[in-house]
């Protein structure tokens, strides 16, 4: 308990404003790296995922690559990229590592969003004479949006937690307090830093949860309700006749 109280005292101490790395600056750096990385990853993975989902091509390749990419250890990748890019390009190296980390979730969200759509809806659109572009933008994108945002949500969570390691290569962020605290055995500082990262992750997750709810088109919920009613009614009728 003392440790937790100390950690909160650490977070709210006025020294956090006068440190060589003020907490507000660290949070700013942390969010900056998170947003930039998720944004770049989305710019790459969303069009690619939509293309895979729409055409159904290269699906196996995408599944295999995004599955394997999740297993890449981010810390090793970060240090490797810093050594490859050179120490003068540390931010680029770090963002590359985080982008690679974020791509699998977003890619999976984008193509599985399209795959989850009832094929009859797309066929209906086609039968009505919609062009492929119209099907993509008016049918598939709105219906696939909730799953895509789910993908973005988990990518953002993963990245916000992983940006902690950016401090290992002198890029600051909240991880700095954790990484500095370990060899100093300053557990208050370590826990304080960890709590701030946790709070940031929860806030981000909450924001995405809200967006995800707003992104469900109204027609989707209505369609689901009618479908649910159909089968049970029939089944219940047969059971009733047997017991009688």
């Amino acid at each position, binding site marked *: *308990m003392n440790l937790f109280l100390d950690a909160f005292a650490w977070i709210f101490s006025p020294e956090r404003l006068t440190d060589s790395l003020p907490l507000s600056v660290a949070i700013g750096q942390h969010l900056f790296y998170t947003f930039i990385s998720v944004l770049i990853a989305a710019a790459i993975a969303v069009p690619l995922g939509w293309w895979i989902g729409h055409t159904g091509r290269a699906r196996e390749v995408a599944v295999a690559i995004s599955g394997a990419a999740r297993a890449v250890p981010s810390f090793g990748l970060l240090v490797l990229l810093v050594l490859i890019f050179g120490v003068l390009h540390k931010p680029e190296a770090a963002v590359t590592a985080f982008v690679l980390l974020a791509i699998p979730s977003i890619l999976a969200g984008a193509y599985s969003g399209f795959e989850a759509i009832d094929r009859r809806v797309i066929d209906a659109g086609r039968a009505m004479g919609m062009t492929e572009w119209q099907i993509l933008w008016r049918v598939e994108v709105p219906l696939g949006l909730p799953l895509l945002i789910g993908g973005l949500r988990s990518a953002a969570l993963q990245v916000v937690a992983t940006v902690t390691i950016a401090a290992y290569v002198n890029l600051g962020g909240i991880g*700095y307090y954790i990484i*500095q605290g370990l*060899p100093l*055995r300053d557990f208050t500082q370590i826990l304080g830093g960890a709590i701030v990262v946790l709070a940031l992750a929860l806030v981000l997750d909450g924001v995405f949860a809200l967006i995800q709810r707003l992104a469900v088109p109204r027609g989707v919920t209505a369609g689901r309700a009618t479908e649910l009613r159909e089968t049970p009614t029939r089944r219940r009728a047969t059971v009733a006749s047997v017991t009688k």
Partner: protein
Amino acid sequence: MFTARNKGRLALGAVVVGAALALSGCASSDPLDSGSSNPGDGGSETIVIGSQAYYSNEIIAEIYAQALENAGFEVERNFNIGQRDAYIPAIENGSIDLFPEYTGNLLQFYDNTATATTPDEVYAALKDALPDGLTVLDQSPATDQDSYNVTKAFADQYGLTSIADLASVDVPIVLGGAPELEKRPYGPTGLKDTYGVTVQFQATGDTTVEDLVAGTVNLADVYSADPRIQTDDLVTLDDPEGLFLASNVVPLVNEDVADEIADVINAVSAKLTPEGLVDLNVQSTVDQKSPSDLAKAWLTEQGLI
């Protein structure tokens, strides 16, 4: 009656109880307190040797191991354990008997207010600071300690030989090192108080030497036995005021086995010189030789086996 609903309630109850237990565990005790340690279990037959996750430390541990094996001891190697936080509890509870350590850094671990800086002062202070059951054998002349380094070009440009000369440099001095250096007594504060040198700090961590060579920092904290001081043409600045704690290689041992192995290990420590240690490090990093080959060659060369 296990209806679905009851099951749900049961599960919920279990979660609540579990969470309460887990949280109360957090509340009542300090999770980082290592608790009572077991008394050493003798270890008269097998000497368990540990090492840090640091190649140079592992070479020294391997030298200890082969020297003891040659003297007829049974040895168990438990190398590459990690940082001091990870292995000290294992030494304190007797599961490791012998560990190559560094006087200054170990003293700072047990007493972070220590003021000793010369090798003999540090060694004496360390003996007092060690907990019961642990002791150190003779310290070796070999050192592996923090040191401030600049590039050869930078040293020539400003005529630098000691840390004090940094005061006359007319460009801002940017110090690179591990993140914790910022708060160490010999870090930016120590430089200012002891030598009147004001520096900015950059936490360059694992890429400190690369950063120094690339010019993102112009002063770097590098271990004195690091071969890159030679291979990258760095200049180590003298420390006339004793800002850094001397950190000689020293065997940390469990008192139960200290007397048995003292003769063998002290003979090794006496022969291990600073230049010898750097040479071993160069052979390890540049020539990629294995610790066991290096240890064997070194012991044979010194006439110890």
